[in-house]
């Protein structure tokens, strides 16, 4: 473990629709290493869980991400206490 991984941040992650079913989980609190600084860092860290996580969050799969209820990009920063939602492309209307 790198020195900057010695501290952790706790964030809340929400999953919606197909992703909730694929992961068997609607929400969880995760303790991520401090090296996870943005959205792409979080998805990369979640992919390390393998299986459904690696599959559904693989690069190129369309996943929308909101940080604190605002649509986010790959480089949107993530801090301790944030609520991050992982969502399939929307299909309302």
């Amino acid at each position, binding site marked *: 473990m790198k020195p900057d991984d010695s501290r952790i941040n706790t964030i809340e992650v929400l999953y919606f629709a197909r992703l909730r079913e694929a992961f068997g989980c609607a929400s969880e609190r995760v303790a991520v290493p401090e090296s996870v600084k943005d959205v792409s860092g979080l998805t990369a860290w979640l992919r390390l869980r393998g299986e459904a996580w690696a599959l559904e969050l693989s690069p190129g799969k369309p996943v929308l991400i909101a940080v604190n209820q605002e649509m986010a990009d790959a480089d949107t920063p993530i801090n301790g206490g944030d609520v991050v939602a992982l969502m399939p492309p929307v299909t309302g*209307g």
Partner: protein
Amino acid sequence: MAVRVQTGDFDIGVEIAAMRRDNPKVGAVASFIGVVRDVNDGDRVAEMTLEHYPGMTEKALEKMVATALSRWNVDDALVIHRVGTLKPGDQIVLVVVTGGHRGEAFQTCEFLMDYLKTRAPFWKKERTPAGARWVGARESDDAAADRWS
């Protein structure tokens, strides 16, 4: 401006009457109603369930409406979107725009629907004879939304 996410049905007549009341400068009312169809991608649809992200959905819709009202010269806009289980023929979504003239009212209504379809966190799961499935996003909806940017 008003945004509502609800399980119950809506009545377009009641909603338009409320928006026009005591507002004699309204010369145009444009509206759109989305309805559940009984077929999708070649399969019969028995019913569908709409899921959303409570809290964020309302914020996203309010932001969309605020953007529309600042972009076009219209008076007011209303968006109602239903969630929960719906059957073919049921109303899903209502957009109403009031303004002085039809051109901007039509455009605002269309913009709101295009944005809602690609940016508001709703998801449809439909039940067909082949089983339940999540409805996939359509590229044509992305293209429709992109023309406003």
